């Protein structure tokens, strides 16, 4: 008997070292907590004894969850699961929990012993993994879209190179036939004029344009892929200075367009200075490219902080983007107006890529004719290093 009690005491001591232990009476009032319970819940023993477990309820689980627990243990079965609790200081923690009902000789639960293990870190890791998985899925989708667009956009000039290449061969054959048919190699001009003056120049024009287009696409792709590898230096950015710098870099074009640029006070944001400046540059460039032919260009830059993000807007009074084209505007190599001002269709794709790497976003609002407002966001407080993939 003596050794049995001693053994039980040893087991209890070991358990107290390992686990968070609490005992409640049949009505749920706390009658015992060990030191680990006090330390994780940040309540003193006196604050806990006599209370029920609602004191550490985090509000995370629905009421039905707790009803389920009570249903199980009241009927004499052990409950096992994961619970998120709230400590005295408001912080939350996750515990892997086993609740064992101790039955009275009458077959009713007399008290409940709950043994818990802190799994807060594991839960955080799981959530982080989940975010990584979502990020990766998103990136994968993006890559797929790029490959899809590229295969189309590269194939398009290739079709011309192939098709007009065949026409060149045919022109050669015809000239050759004309030579073969002519006695003493005296080929009449009429036999080759059409080939030399129409067919061959046309074929060469399309072949050269196709090759040029493919070169442009590949150079753009290389530029885009390089962006993903460049190291970022995330720092607190004085956006007023970053925007002013971007505007002054384009002063010549802005002056030539007689643009009226207005800038409100901008909140600071956390990002890479060079890349964020490039976002401003691309947006100003777009405002210039797509300005309205009949209106003097006006660009308005404003900013505000919302939900931990600094949001900046660049509004213009240009030609605007119809609602059905607004999503496409960010697609790689997509150009609003292929007959319009030159460009490779990368400006907004690059802006989006650059911002996503800095935990920011970019989107556009446009009522069509009245102009476009591009918004982009960056964290307004220093981002957690953990969340940077």
């Amino acid at each position, binding site marked *: 008997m003596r050794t049995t009690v001693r053994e039980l005491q040893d087991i209890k001591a070991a358990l107290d070292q390992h686990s968070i232990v609490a005992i409640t009476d049949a009505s749920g009032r706390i009658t015992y907590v060990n030191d680990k319970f006090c330390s994780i819940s940040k309540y003193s023993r006196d604050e806990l004894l006599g209370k029920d477990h609602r004191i550490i309820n985090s509000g995370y689980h629905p009421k039905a969850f707790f009803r389920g627990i009570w249903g199980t243990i009241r009927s004499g079965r052990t409950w096992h699961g994961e619970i998120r609790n709230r400590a005295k200081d408001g912080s939350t923690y996750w515990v892997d929990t086993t609740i064992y009902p101790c039955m009275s000789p009458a077959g009713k639960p007399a008290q409940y012993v709950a043994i818990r293990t802190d799994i807060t870190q594991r839960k955080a890791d799981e959530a982080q993994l989940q975010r990584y998985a979502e990020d990766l899925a998103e990136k994968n989708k993006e890559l797929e879209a790029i490959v899809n667009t590229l295969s*189309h956009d590269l*194939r*398009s000039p290739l*079709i011309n190179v192939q*098709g007009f290449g065949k026409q060149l061969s045919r022109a050669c054959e015809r000239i050759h036939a004309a030579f073969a048919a002519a006695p003493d190699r005296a080929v009449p001009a009429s036999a080759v004029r059409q080939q030399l003056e129409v067919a061959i120049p046309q074929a060469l024009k399309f072949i050269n344009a196709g090759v040029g287009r493919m070169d442009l696409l590949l150079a753009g792709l290389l530029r885009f892929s390089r962006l993903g590898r460049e190291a970022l230096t995330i720092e607190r950015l004085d956006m007023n200075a970053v925007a002013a710098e971007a505007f002054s870099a384009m002063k010549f074009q802005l002056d030539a367009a007689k643009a009226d640029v207005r800038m409100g006070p901008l909140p600071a944001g956390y990002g890479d200075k060079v890349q964020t400046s490039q976002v401003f540059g691309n947006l100003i460039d777009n405002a210039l490219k797509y300005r309205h032919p009949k209106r003097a260009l006006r660009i308005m830059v404003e900013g505000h902080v919302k939900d931990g993000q600094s949001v900046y807007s660049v509004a213009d009074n240009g030609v605007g983007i119809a609602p059905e084209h607004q999503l496409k505007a960010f697609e790689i190599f997509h150009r*609003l*107006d*292929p007959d319009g001002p030159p460009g490779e269709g990368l400006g907004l794709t690059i802006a989006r890529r650059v911002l996503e790497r800095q935990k920011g976003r970019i989107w556009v609002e446009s009522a069509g004719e009245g102009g476009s407002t591009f918004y982009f966001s960056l964290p307004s407080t220093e981002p957690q290093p953990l969340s940077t993939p």
Partner: protein
Amino acid sequence: MNNAGTRAPAILIVDDDEGHAILARESLEAAGLNNSIQHFRDGQAALDFFFPVGPGPHAVRGGAYLMLLDIRMPKVDGVEVLRRLKADPELHNLPVIALTTADDAREVERCHALGCDVYLQKPVDYEKFTEAIRRLGLFMTLLLIPPTKKS
């Protein structure tokens, strides 16, 4: 009086790529087709042809047409053109051959969803074109009729 059943339809090529349109036209001409061929540089121009909003060439009532429609175009794309045509009670039977730049299952899927079951992958060559025409059940109307035989 026009009778669409016995007239060779005018072929409308809707493609933003001028080179592709020239290649398609020359392939059809090289094969001896003497249908009139018209080129539209984008989806909007093709829609304007059937849904007139201003001056410019318009479809003739009762005229026979066959559309070769590029799917990927900026602004109004082929899917949008197809959607508008299929939604119109008078135009939904207009034969349309969708042109795709690459063998893209998703693009083909979109065409099918809009009720277009004939598509060609570029470059358009005459044999593939006639096969597509056969599937549309239109082969007879495209057969060549020597100009001397009939007015």
